[in-house]
Protein backbone atom coordinates (compact mmCIF):
# COMPACT_ATOMS: atom_id res chain seq x y z
CA UNK A 1 0.00 0.00 0.00
CA UNK A 2 1.16 3.43 -0.83
CA UNK A 3 1.84 5.30 2.39
CA UNK A 4 1.30 8.97 2.85
CA UNK A 5 3.08 11.21 5.30
CA UNK A 6 0.88 13.35 7.43
CA UNK A 7 2.42 14.27 10.73
CA UNK A 8 5.38 16.03 9.14
CA UNK A 9 4.82 19.65 8.21
CA UNK A 10 4.56 20.06 4.46
CA UNK A 11 7.71 22.07 3.95
CA UNK A 12 8.60 23.55 0.63
CA UNK A 13 10.91 20.73 -0.32
CA UNK A 14 9.02 17.72 0.98
CA UNK A 15 7.44 15.21 -1.36
CA UNK A 16 4.29 15.01 0.70
CA UNK A 17 0.94 14.22 -0.81
CA UNK A 18 -2.48 14.95 0.56
CA UNK A 19 -2.48 14.06 4.26
CA UNK A 20 -4.97 11.27 4.79
CA UNK A 21 -3.79 8.38 6.95
CA UNK A 22 -1.18 8.81 9.66
CA UNK A 23 1.79 6.78 8.48
CA UNK A 24 5.22 7.43 9.83
CA UNK A 25 7.62 8.39 7.05
CA UNK A 26 10.26 5.81 6.19
CA UNK A 27 12.73 8.64 6.05
CA UNK A 28 12.53 12.11 7.48
CA UNK A 29 15.23 14.78 7.18
CA UNK A 30 15.08 18.29 8.63
CA UNK A 31 17.95 20.62 7.81
CA UNK A 32 20.35 17.69 7.66
CA UNK A 33 24.04 18.53 7.33
CA UNK A 34 26.50 15.67 7.00
CA UNK A 35 30.29 15.47 7.19
CA UNK A 36 33.15 12.99 7.46
CA UNK A 37 35.00 13.26 10.76
CA UNK A 38 36.10 16.83 11.39
CA UNK A 39 36.05 17.84 7.70
CA UNK A 40 33.78 20.64 6.49
CA UNK A 41 30.25 19.49 5.64
CA UNK A 42 29.97 17.44 2.44
CA UNK A 43 26.24 18.03 2.17
CA UNK A 44 24.08 20.67 3.83
CA UNK A 45 20.48 21.56 4.50
CA UNK A 46 18.55 18.54 3.29
CA UNK A 47 14.88 18.58 4.23
CA UNK A 48 12.51 15.94 2.90
CA UNK A 49 10.24 13.00 3.70
CA UNK A 50 9.92 9.64 2.02
CA UNK A 51 6.78 7.65 2.77
CA UNK A 52 6.65 3.85 2.86
CA UNK A 53 6.18 2.58 -0.70
CA UNK A 54 7.76 5.69 -2.21
CA UNK A 55 11.06 6.01 -4.03
CA UNK A 56 13.39 8.98 -3.82
CA UNK A 57 16.05 9.60 -6.48
CA UNK A 58 19.19 11.40 -5.32
CA UNK A 59 20.68 13.23 -8.30
CA UNK A 60 23.74 15.41 -8.64
CA UNK A 61 27.21 15.55 -10.21
CA UNK A 62 30.15 13.56 -8.84
CA UNK A 63 31.27 14.86 -5.48
CA UNK A 64 27.95 16.63 -4.93
CA UNK A 65 27.09 14.64 -1.84
CA UNK A 66 25.01 11.76 -3.22
CA UNK A 67 27.15 9.12 -1.52
CA UNK A 68 27.38 11.26 1.61
CA UNK A 69 23.60 11.29 1.83
CA UNK A 70 23.36 7.54 1.32
CA UNK A 71 26.05 6.82 3.90
CA UNK A 72 24.27 9.23 6.24
CA UNK A 73 21.10 7.13 6.00
CA UNK A 74 23.20 4.11 6.99
CA UNK A 75 24.72 5.94 9.96
CA UNK A 76 28.17 5.96 8.35
CA UNK A 77 28.62 9.72 8.04
CA UNK A 78 28.42 12.16 10.88
CA UNK A 79 25.30 14.23 11.39
CA UNK A 80 26.69 17.74 11.93
CA UNK A 81 23.33 19.50 12.12
CA UNK A 82 19.62 18.92 11.74
CA UNK A 83 17.47 15.89 12.44
CA UNK A 84 17.58 12.62 10.51
CA UNK A 85 15.13 9.82 11.27
CA UNK A 86 15.17 6.50 9.44
CA UNK A 87 12.10 4.32 10.08
CA UNK A 88 11.48 6.56 13.09
CA UNK A 89 14.85 5.69 14.63
CA UNK A 90 18.38 7.02 14.44
CA UNK A 91 20.16 5.76 11.30
CA UNK A 92 22.45 3.47 13.32
CA UNK A 93 19.52 1.96 15.20
CA UNK A 94 17.53 1.43 12.01
CA UNK A 95 20.21 -0.65 10.25
CA UNK A 96 18.48 -3.95 10.97
CA UNK A 97 15.55 -2.87 8.78
CA UNK A 98 17.53 -1.07 6.10
CA UNK A 99 18.95 -2.86 3.07
CA UNK A 100 21.97 -1.40 1.31
CA UNK A 101 22.85 -2.28 -2.28
CA UNK A 102 26.30 -0.91 -3.17
CA UNK A 103 27.85 -0.70 -6.60
CA UNK A 104 29.37 -3.99 -7.71
CA UNK A 105 32.45 -2.31 -9.19
CA UNK A 106 34.44 -2.42 -5.96
CA UNK A 107 34.06 -6.15 -5.36
CA UNK A 108 36.87 -8.61 -6.06
CA UNK A 109 35.68 -10.89 -8.90
CA UNK A 110 38.00 -13.65 -7.66
CA UNK A 111 36.62 -13.70 -4.12
CA UNK A 112 35.75 -17.34 -3.37
CA UNK A 113 32.07 -17.13 -2.42
CA UNK A 114 29.00 -18.52 -4.16
CA UNK A 115 25.90 -16.46 -4.84
CA UNK A 116 23.93 -18.13 -2.06
CA UNK A 117 26.79 -17.49 0.40
CA UNK A 118 26.71 -13.80 -0.53
CA UNK A 119 22.93 -13.66 -0.03
CA UNK A 120 23.27 -15.48 3.30
CA UNK A 121 25.61 -12.69 4.44
CA UNK A 122 22.49 -10.51 4.50
CA UNK A 123 21.20 -12.73 7.31
CA UNK A 124 24.38 -12.81 9.42
CA UNK A 125 23.00 -10.17 11.80
CA UNK A 126 19.88 -12.19 12.51
CA UNK A 127 21.78 -15.48 12.57
CA UNK A 128 23.97 -14.51 15.52
CA UNK A 129 25.64 -17.72 16.72
CA UNK A 130 23.30 -20.10 14.96
CA UNK A 131 24.25 -22.29 12.05
CA UNK A 132 21.95 -21.33 9.13
CA UNK A 133 18.74 -23.35 9.48
CA UNK A 134 15.93 -24.31 7.12
CA UNK A 135 14.20 -20.95 7.50
CA UNK A 136 17.39 -19.10 6.64
CA UNK A 137 17.95 -21.20 3.54
CA UNK A 138 14.31 -20.69 2.56
CA UNK A 139 14.74 -16.93 2.92
CA UNK A 140 17.84 -17.03 0.72
CA UNK A 141 15.98 -19.10 -1.84
CA UNK A 142 13.01 -16.73 -1.83
CA UNK A 143 15.24 -13.68 -2.25
CA UNK A 144 17.06 -15.30 -5.17
CA UNK A 145 13.75 -16.27 -6.75
CA UNK A 146 12.54 -12.72 -6.45
CA UNK A 147 15.52 -11.37 -8.37
CA UNK A 148 15.36 -14.23 -10.88
CA UNK A 149 18.63 -15.95 -9.98
CA UNK A 150 17.47 -19.28 -8.48
CA UNK A 151 19.32 -21.22 -11.15
CA UNK A 152 22.66 -19.57 -10.44
CA UNK A 153 22.64 -20.01 -6.66
CA UNK A 154 25.75 -22.23 -6.59
CA UNK A 155 27.70 -20.06 -9.05
CA UNK A 156 30.73 -18.17 -7.82
CA UNK A 157 29.61 -14.58 -7.30
CA UNK A 158 32.45 -13.08 -9.35
CA UNK A 159 31.53 -15.16 -12.39
CA UNK A 160 28.07 -13.66 -12.67
CA UNK A 161 27.53 -10.83 -15.14
CA UNK A 162 27.41 -7.24 -13.88
CA UNK A 163 23.62 -7.23 -13.96
CA UNK A 164 23.37 -10.57 -12.18
CA UNK A 165 25.80 -9.40 -9.50
CA UNK A 166 23.71 -6.29 -8.96
CA UNK A 167 20.60 -8.42 -8.57
CA UNK A 168 22.55 -10.73 -6.25
CA UNK A 169 23.41 -7.79 -4.00
CA UNK A 170 19.75 -6.78 -4.09
CA UNK A 171 18.86 -10.31 -2.95
CA UNK A 172 21.42 -9.97 -0.12
CA UNK A 173 19.59 -6.81 0.99
CA UNK A 174 16.14 -8.40 0.59
CA UNK A 175 16.89 -11.50 2.62
CA UNK A 176 16.50 -9.63 5.90
CA UNK A 177 13.11 -8.16 4.85
CA UNK A 178 14.08 -4.47 4.89
CA UNK A 179 11.54 -1.65 5.00
CA UNK A 180 13.90 0.83 3.37
CA UNK A 181 16.25 -0.04 0.52
CA UNK A 182 19.20 2.18 -0.30
CA UNK A 183 20.63 1.69 -3.79
CA UNK A 184 23.90 3.30 -4.88
CA UNK A 185 24.01 3.88 -8.65
CA UNK A 186 22.22 0.57 -9.28
CA UNK A 187 22.09 0.83 -13.07
CA UNK A 188 25.70 1.71 -13.84
CA UNK A 189 26.84 -0.46 -16.70
CA UNK A 190 23.78 -2.70 -16.82
CA UNK A 191 22.37 -4.21 -19.98
CA UNK A 192 18.76 -3.49 -20.93
CA UNK A 193 17.43 -6.84 -19.63
CA UNK A 194 18.97 -6.39 -16.19
CA UNK A 195 17.67 -2.80 -16.09
CA UNK A 196 14.14 -3.94 -16.86
CA UNK A 197 14.30 -6.77 -14.32
CA UNK A 198 15.60 -4.40 -11.65
CA UNK A 199 12.90 -1.82 -12.40
CA UNK A 200 10.18 -4.49 -12.15
CA UNK A 201 11.52 -5.64 -8.78
CA UNK A 202 11.59 -2.06 -7.49
CA UNK A 203 7.97 -1.56 -8.56
CA UNK A 204 6.86 -4.80 -6.88
CA UNK A 205 8.61 -3.95 -3.63
CA UNK A 206 7.17 -0.44 -3.64
CA UNK A 207 3.71 -1.97 -3.92
CA UNK A 208 4.59 -4.01 -0.80
CA UNK A 209 5.32 -0.78 1.06
CA UNK A 210 9.12 -0.82 0.87
CA UNK A 211 10.61 2.65 0.57
CA UNK A 212 13.59 3.36 -1.71
CA UNK A 213 16.42 5.85 -1.85
CA UNK A 214 18.31 5.54 -5.14
CA UNK A 215 21.35 7.59 -6.01
CA UNK A 216 21.77 7.90 -9.75
CA UNK A 217 23.01 9.90 -12.69
CA UNK A 218 20.29 8.39 -14.79
CA UNK A 219 17.28 10.64 -15.26
CA UNK A 220 15.38 7.94 -17.14
CA UNK A 221 15.55 5.80 -14.02
CA UNK A 222 14.25 8.65 -11.89
CA UNK A 223 11.35 9.04 -14.31
CA UNK A 224 10.62 5.31 -14.39
CA UNK A 225 10.29 4.44 -10.70
CA UNK A 226 10.88 7.45 -8.46
CA UNK A 227 8.11 9.57 -6.98
CA UNK A 228 10.34 12.29 -5.65
CA UNK A 229 13.78 13.69 -6.33
CA UNK A 230 16.52 15.22 -4.22
CA UNK A 231 18.82 17.37 -6.32
CA UNK A 232 22.15 18.09 -4.65
CA UNK A 233 25.31 20.03 -5.30
CA UNK A 234 26.98 20.17 -1.91
CA UNK A 235 23.71 21.58 -0.63
CA UNK A 236 20.11 20.70 -1.34
CA UNK A 237 19.22 22.51 -4.57
CA UNK A 238 15.70 21.16 -4.72
CA UNK A 239 13.63 18.35 -3.25
CA UNK A 240 10.07 17.35 -3.89
CA UNK A 241 7.78 15.62 -6.35
CA UNK A 242 9.74 14.37 -9.36
CA UNK A 243 8.21 16.56 -12.03
CA UNK A 244 8.50 19.71 -9.91
CA UNK A 245 12.21 19.10 -9.33
CA UNK A 246 13.40 17.76 -12.68
CA UNK A 247 13.08 21.02 -14.54
CA UNK A 248 15.61 22.16 -17.08
CA UNK A 249 16.31 25.19 -14.95
CA UNK A 250 17.09 23.11 -11.82
CA UNK A 251 19.23 20.64 -13.75
CA UNK A 252 21.30 23.33 -15.34
CA UNK A 253 21.83 24.93 -11.95
CA UNK A 254 23.24 21.66 -10.66
CA UNK A 255 25.09 20.29 -13.64
CA UNK A 256 26.27 23.47 -15.43
CA UNK A 257 29.93 23.14 -16.39
CA UNK A 258 30.14 19.60 -14.95
CA UNK A 259 31.06 16.38 -16.63
CA UNK A 260 28.21 13.96 -16.17
CA UNK A 261 28.86 10.26 -16.45
CA UNK A 262 25.87 8.42 -17.81
CA UNK A 263 26.72 4.73 -17.90
CA UNK A 264 29.91 4.62 -19.92
CA UNK A 265 29.28 7.95 -21.62
CA UNK A 266 30.57 11.26 -20.44
CA UNK A 267 28.44 14.26 -21.21
CA UNK A 268 29.59 17.79 -20.60
CA UNK A 269 26.71 20.03 -19.71
CA UNK A 270 27.34 23.50 -21.12
CA UNK A 271 27.50 26.42 -18.71
CA UNK A 272 24.21 28.11 -17.90
CA UNK A 273 24.70 31.00 -20.33
CA UNK A 274 26.27 28.99 -23.11
CA UNK A 275 24.34 28.09 -26.24
CA UNK A 276 23.18 24.56 -25.51
Amino acid at each position, binding site marked *: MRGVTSDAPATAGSPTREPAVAVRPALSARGVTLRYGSNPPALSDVTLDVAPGEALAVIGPNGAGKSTFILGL*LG*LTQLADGELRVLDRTP*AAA*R*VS*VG*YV*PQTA*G*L*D*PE*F*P*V*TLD*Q*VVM*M*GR*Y*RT*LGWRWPGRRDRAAVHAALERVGLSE*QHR*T*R*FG*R*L*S*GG*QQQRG*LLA*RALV*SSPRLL*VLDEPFN*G*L*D*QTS*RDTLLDIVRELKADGVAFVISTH*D*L*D*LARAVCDSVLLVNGVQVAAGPRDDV*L*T*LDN*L*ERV*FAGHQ*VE*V*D*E*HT*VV*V*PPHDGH*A
Partner: protein
Amino acid sequence: MTAIDWLFSPFALPFMQRPLLVMLVLAVALGLASVMVTLRSLQFVGDGLVHAVFPGIVIGFAVGGREGLVPGGLVAAAIAAVAFTLLTRRALASDSAIAVVLTVMFGIGVIIVSRQSDYVGQLQELLFGRLLTVTDADVTLTVAVAAAATVAIAVVWRTQLFRAHDPLAARAAGHRVLATDLVLAVAVAVLIVAATAAVGNLLALGLLVVPGAAARLLTHRIGWMVAISIAMGALAGFGGLLIGFRASVDWGIPLAGGASVITMLVVIYGVVLAASMLHRHGPRTAHTTADARGASTAPAPVPEAAR
Protein backbone atom coordinates in the same frame (compact mmCIF):
# COMPACT_ATOMS: atom_id res chain seq x y z
CA MET B 1 62.01 -51.73 6.86
CA THR B 2 58.61 -51.29 5.21
CA ALA B 3 57.41 -47.97 3.83
CA ILE B 4 54.94 -47.67 6.68
CA ASP B 5 57.76 -48.17 9.17
CA TRP B 6 59.91 -45.64 7.37
CA LEU B 7 57.11 -43.10 7.54
CA PHE B 8 55.80 -43.63 11.04
CA SER B 9 58.42 -45.31 13.24
CA PRO B 10 60.20 -42.04 14.13
CA PHE B 11 57.03 -40.80 15.78
CA ALA B 12 57.11 -43.66 18.27
CA LEU B 13 59.91 -41.75 19.98
CA PRO B 14 58.70 -39.31 22.67
CA PHE B 15 60.99 -36.51 21.51
CA MET B 16 59.36 -36.75 18.06
CA GLN B 17 55.80 -36.95 19.40
CA ARG B 18 55.90 -33.59 21.12
CA PRO B 19 56.98 -31.62 18.05
CA LEU B 20 54.45 -33.52 15.90
CA LEU B 21 51.66 -32.63 18.32
CA VAL B 22 52.77 -28.99 18.36
CA MET B 23 52.86 -28.90 14.56
CA LEU B 24 49.40 -30.48 14.18
CA VAL B 25 47.88 -28.06 16.68
CA LEU B 26 49.53 -25.12 14.93
CA ALA B 27 48.39 -26.46 11.55
CA VAL B 28 44.74 -26.30 12.62
CA ALA B 29 44.90 -22.85 14.21
CA LEU B 30 47.19 -21.24 11.65
CA GLY B 31 45.39 -23.00 8.79
CA LEU B 32 42.16 -21.28 9.77
CA ALA B 33 43.92 -17.96 10.40
CA SER B 34 45.77 -18.26 7.10
CA VAL B 35 42.54 -18.50 5.10
CA MET B 36 41.21 -15.29 6.63
CA VAL B 37 44.58 -13.54 6.26
CA THR B 38 44.46 -14.47 2.56
CA LEU B 39 40.85 -13.37 2.10
CA ARG B 40 41.47 -10.07 3.86
CA SER B 41 44.81 -9.59 2.04
CA LEU B 42 46.55 -9.12 5.37
CA GLN B 43 49.79 -10.91 4.46
CA PHE B 44 51.83 -7.75 4.90
CA VAL B 45 50.20 -6.99 8.23
CA GLY B 46 51.10 -10.55 9.20
CA ASP B 47 54.69 -9.83 8.25
CA GLY B 48 54.56 -6.66 10.35
CA LEU B 49 53.22 -8.61 13.33
CA VAL B 50 55.93 -11.27 13.01
CA HIS B 51 58.64 -8.64 13.19
CA ALA B 52 56.95 -6.48 15.81
CA VAL B 53 56.52 -9.44 18.13
CA PHE B 54 60.25 -10.14 18.00
CA PRO B 55 61.46 -7.52 20.54
CA GLY B 56 58.79 -8.70 22.99
CA ILE B 57 60.07 -12.24 22.69
CA VAL B 58 63.65 -11.07 23.11
CA ILE B 59 62.86 -8.95 26.18
CA GLY B 60 60.87 -11.82 27.69
CA PHE B 61 63.81 -14.13 26.99
CA ALA B 62 66.34 -11.70 28.44
CA VAL B 63 64.30 -11.19 31.61
CA GLY B 64 62.89 -14.64 32.28
CA GLY B 65 64.83 -17.05 30.09
CA ARG B 66 62.83 -19.57 28.05
CA GLU B 67 59.81 -19.22 30.34
CA GLY B 68 59.72 -15.50 29.63
CA LEU B 69 59.66 -15.94 25.86
CA VAL B 70 55.94 -16.49 25.35
CA PRO B 71 54.66 -13.97 27.94
CA GLY B 72 56.95 -11.29 26.50
CA GLY B 73 55.80 -12.16 23.00
CA LEU B 74 52.12 -12.08 23.99
CA VAL B 75 52.43 -8.58 25.42
CA ALA B 76 54.18 -7.35 22.26
CA ALA B 77 51.63 -9.20 20.12
CA ALA B 78 48.68 -7.48 21.76
CA ILE B 79 50.26 -4.04 21.43
CA ALA B 80 51.36 -4.59 17.83
CA ALA B 81 48.01 -6.06 16.74
CA VAL B 82 46.06 -3.10 18.08
CA ALA B 83 48.57 -0.61 16.65
CA PHE B 84 48.52 -2.16 13.17
CA THR B 85 44.73 -2.45 13.09
CA LEU B 86 44.35 1.22 13.97
CA LEU B 87 47.13 2.24 11.54
CA THR B 88 45.59 0.36 8.61
CA ARG B 89 42.21 1.95 9.29
CA ARG B 90 43.70 5.20 8.12
CA ALA B 91 43.91 4.07 4.55
CA LEU B 92 46.69 6.51 3.64
CA ALA B 93 50.18 5.04 3.48
CA SER B 94 49.34 2.10 5.71
CA ASP B 95 51.96 -0.08 4.04
CA SER B 96 54.74 2.42 4.70
CA ALA B 97 53.57 2.84 8.28
CA ILE B 98 53.76 -0.93 8.80
CA ALA B 99 57.12 -1.13 7.06
CA VAL B 100 58.61 1.56 9.31
CA VAL B 101 57.21 0.02 12.48
CA LEU B 102 58.31 -3.52 11.65
CA THR B 103 61.84 -2.46 10.75
CA VAL B 104 62.25 -0.43 13.93
CA MET B 105 60.80 -3.17 16.13
CA PHE B 106 62.91 -5.89 14.58
CA GLY B 107 66.00 -3.72 14.96
CA ILE B 108 65.26 -3.13 18.64
CA GLY B 109 64.95 -6.87 19.11
CA VAL B 110 68.30 -7.58 17.47
CA ILE B 111 70.01 -4.86 19.54
CA ILE B 112 68.70 -6.38 22.77
CA VAL B 113 69.78 -9.86 21.75
CA SER B 114 73.24 -8.62 20.84
CA ARG B 115 73.71 -7.39 24.43
CA GLN B 116 73.36 -10.98 25.67
CA SER B 117 76.13 -13.47 26.14
CA ASP B 118 76.02 -16.29 23.56
CA TYR B 119 74.52 -13.87 21.07
CA VAL B 120 74.70 -16.11 18.00
CA GLY B 121 73.15 -19.18 19.62
CA GLN B 122 70.27 -17.24 21.13
CA LEU B 123 69.52 -15.26 18.00
CA GLN B 124 69.47 -18.47 16.01
CA GLU B 125 67.08 -20.09 18.47
CA LEU B 126 64.73 -17.10 18.40
CA LEU B 127 64.77 -16.80 14.63
CA PHE B 128 64.59 -20.47 13.76
CA GLY B 129 62.98 -22.04 16.82
CA ARG B 130 63.81 -25.33 18.52
CA LEU B 131 61.09 -27.65 17.41
CA LEU B 132 62.86 -30.88 18.34
CA THR B 133 63.56 -29.85 21.94
CA VAL B 134 60.10 -28.59 22.94
CA THR B 135 59.14 -29.49 26.49
CA ASP B 136 55.80 -30.70 27.87
CA ALA B 137 55.25 -27.20 29.19
CA ASP B 138 55.79 -25.81 25.67
CA VAL B 139 53.23 -28.26 24.30
CA THR B 140 50.64 -27.32 26.93
CA LEU B 141 51.14 -23.62 26.27
CA THR B 142 50.91 -24.05 22.50
CA VAL B 143 47.68 -26.06 22.76
CA ALA B 144 46.12 -23.48 25.11
CA VAL B 145 47.13 -20.50 22.98
CA ALA B 146 46.08 -22.17 19.72
CA ALA B 147 42.70 -23.22 21.15
CA ALA B 148 41.97 -19.71 22.39
CA ALA B 149 42.99 -18.14 19.08
CA THR B 150 40.93 -20.65 17.08
CA VAL B 151 37.83 -19.93 19.12
CA ALA B 152 38.37 -16.18 18.71
CA ILE B 153 38.74 -16.48 14.94
CA ALA B 154 35.66 -18.69 14.69
CA VAL B 155 33.65 -16.10 16.64
CA VAL B 156 34.51 -13.26 14.24
CA TRP B 157 34.54 -15.46 11.11
CA ARG B 158 31.20 -14.41 9.59
CA THR B 159 31.70 -10.70 10.08
CA GLN B 160 35.23 -10.94 8.72
CA LEU B 161 34.08 -12.91 5.69
CA PHE B 162 31.33 -10.37 4.92
CA ARG B 163 33.77 -7.53 5.53
CA ALA B 164 36.44 -9.10 3.31
CA HIS B 165 34.00 -9.33 0.43
CA ASP B 166 32.19 -6.02 0.87
CA PRO B 167 33.48 -3.83 3.72
CA LEU B 168 31.02 -0.97 3.30
CA ALA B 169 27.98 -3.26 3.16
CA ALA B 170 29.17 -5.07 6.28
CA ARG B 171 29.34 -1.76 8.15
CA ALA B 172 26.00 -0.67 6.69
CA ALA B 173 24.42 -3.88 7.98
CA GLY B 174 25.55 -2.89 11.47
CA HIS B 175 28.41 -5.35 11.93
CA ARG B 176 31.06 -4.27 14.42
CA VAL B 177 33.87 -4.29 11.92
CA LEU B 178 36.59 -2.60 13.99
CA ALA B 179 35.95 -4.83 17.00
CA THR B 180 36.26 -8.00 14.90
CA ASP B 181 39.34 -6.59 13.12
CA LEU B 182 40.99 -6.21 16.51
CA VAL B 183 40.01 -9.72 17.58
CA LEU B 184 41.41 -11.22 14.37
CA ALA B 185 44.66 -9.23 14.62
CA VAL B 186 45.25 -10.18 18.26
CA ALA B 187 44.43 -13.84 17.54
CA VAL B 188 46.87 -13.88 14.62
CA ALA B 189 49.56 -12.13 16.67
CA VAL B 190 49.16 -14.59 19.52
CA LEU B 191 49.42 -17.50 17.09
CA ILE B 192 52.61 -15.99 15.73
CA VAL B 193 54.05 -16.04 19.24
CA ALA B 194 53.09 -19.70 19.65
CA ALA B 195 54.55 -20.55 16.26
CA THR B 196 57.72 -18.58 17.03
CA ALA B 197 58.42 -20.77 20.04
CA ALA B 198 58.21 -23.82 17.76
CA VAL B 199 59.60 -22.93 14.35
CA GLY B 200 61.14 -19.54 15.08
CA ASN B 201 60.19 -16.00 14.33
CA LEU B 202 61.03 -15.89 10.63
CA LEU B 203 59.40 -19.19 9.74
CA ALA B 204 56.18 -18.41 11.64
CA LEU B 205 55.31 -16.09 8.78
CA GLY B 206 55.47 -19.02 6.36
CA LEU B 207 52.94 -20.99 8.40
CA LEU B 208 50.67 -17.95 8.54
CA VAL B 209 50.76 -17.05 4.85
CA VAL B 210 51.50 -20.10 2.72
CA PRO B 211 48.66 -22.58 3.52
CA GLY B 212 45.89 -20.07 2.85
CA ALA B 213 47.53 -18.81 -0.33
CA ALA B 214 47.96 -22.36 -1.64
CA ALA B 215 44.38 -23.30 -0.76
CA ARG B 216 43.21 -20.20 -2.61
CA LEU B 217 44.89 -21.50 -5.76
CA LEU B 218 43.15 -24.87 -5.53
CA THR B 219 39.55 -24.00 -4.79
CA HIS B 220 36.88 -21.31 -4.91
CA ARG B 221 34.92 -22.72 -1.97
CA ILE B 222 35.54 -21.33 1.50
CA GLY B 223 34.95 -24.64 3.27
CA TRP B 224 37.44 -26.43 1.06
CA MET B 225 39.93 -23.60 1.51
CA VAL B 226 39.89 -24.12 5.27
CA ALA B 227 40.22 -27.91 4.93
CA ILE B 228 43.08 -27.70 2.41
CA SER B 229 44.88 -25.01 4.39
CA ILE B 230 44.82 -27.08 7.57
CA ALA B 231 45.78 -30.29 5.74
CA MET B 232 48.70 -28.53 4.11
CA GLY B 233 50.10 -27.30 7.43
CA ALA B 234 49.66 -30.76 8.94
CA LEU B 235 51.34 -32.43 5.98
CA ALA B 236 54.24 -29.97 6.09
CA GLY B 237 54.61 -30.56 9.84
CA PHE B 238 54.59 -34.33 9.46
CA GLY B 239 56.75 -34.43 6.34
CA GLY B 240 59.19 -31.84 7.62
CA LEU B 241 59.74 -33.63 10.92
CA LEU B 242 60.11 -36.96 9.13
CA ILE B 243 62.67 -35.64 6.66
CA GLY B 244 64.50 -33.84 9.45
CA PHE B 245 64.68 -37.09 11.43
CA ARG B 246 65.73 -39.26 8.47
CA ALA B 247 68.32 -36.74 7.37
CA SER B 248 69.87 -36.45 10.83
CA VAL B 249 69.66 -40.11 11.89
CA ASP B 250 69.92 -42.10 8.66
CA TRP B 251 71.81 -39.84 6.31
CA GLY B 252 74.07 -38.00 8.72
CA ILE B 253 72.94 -34.53 7.64
CA PRO B 254 71.91 -32.47 10.69
CA LEU B 255 68.69 -30.59 9.79
CA ALA B 256 66.87 -28.15 12.07
CA GLY B 257 63.27 -29.30 12.59
CA GLY B 258 61.68 -25.90 11.96
CA ALA B 259 63.65 -25.36 8.79
CA SER B 260 62.72 -28.73 7.32
CA VAL B 261 59.03 -28.09 8.12
CA ILE B 262 59.08 -24.78 6.27
CA THR B 263 61.03 -26.27 3.38
CA MET B 264 58.39 -28.97 3.11
CA LEU B 265 55.67 -26.29 3.16
CA VAL B 266 57.34 -24.37 0.35
CA VAL B 267 57.78 -27.57 -1.69
CA ILE B 268 54.06 -28.36 -1.31
CA TYR B 269 53.22 -24.80 -2.31
CA GLY B 270 55.42 -25.13 -5.40
CA VAL B 271 53.64 -28.31 -6.44
CA VAL B 272 50.25 -26.67 -5.90
CA LEU B 273 51.29 -23.59 -7.86
CA ALA B 274 52.57 -25.69 -10.77
CA ALA B 275 49.39 -27.80 -10.74
CA SER B 276 47.11 -24.77 -10.76
CA MET B 277 49.09 -23.15 -13.58
CA LEU B 278 48.86 -26.32 -15.65
CA HIS B 279 45.15 -26.45 -14.91
CA ARG B 280 44.64 -22.85 -16.01
CA HIS B 281 46.80 -22.80 -19.09
CA GLY B 282 46.41 -26.43 -20.07
CA PRO B 283 44.25 -27.87 -22.84
CA ARG B 284 41.07 -26.66 -21.18
CA THR B 285 40.26 -23.08 -22.11
CA ALA B 286 40.47 -20.40 -19.49
CA HIS B 287 37.38 -19.60 -17.47
CA THR B 288 35.21 -16.93 -18.97
CA THR B 289 32.55 -14.93 -17.24
CA ALA B 290 28.99 -16.11 -17.69
CA ASP B 291 28.19 -13.31 -20.07
CA ALA B 292 29.68 -9.99 -21.01
CA ARG B 293 29.69 -7.34 -18.33
CA GLY B 294 28.48 -3.86 -18.75
CA ALA B 295 26.68 -3.97 -22.07
CA SER B 296 26.01 -0.35 -22.69
CA THR B 297 22.71 1.24 -23.19
CA ALA B 298 22.87 4.93 -23.66
CA PRO B 299 20.37 7.02 -21.76
CA ALA B 300 19.82 10.46 -23.15
CA PRO B 301 22.31 13.14 -22.09
CA VAL B 302 21.18 15.24 -19.19
CA PRO B 303 19.91 18.40 -20.95
CA GLU B 304 17.91 16.40 -23.47
CA ALA B 305 16.34 14.26 -20.79
CA ALA B 306 15.15 17.34 -19.01
CA ARG B 307 13.29 18.71 -21.95
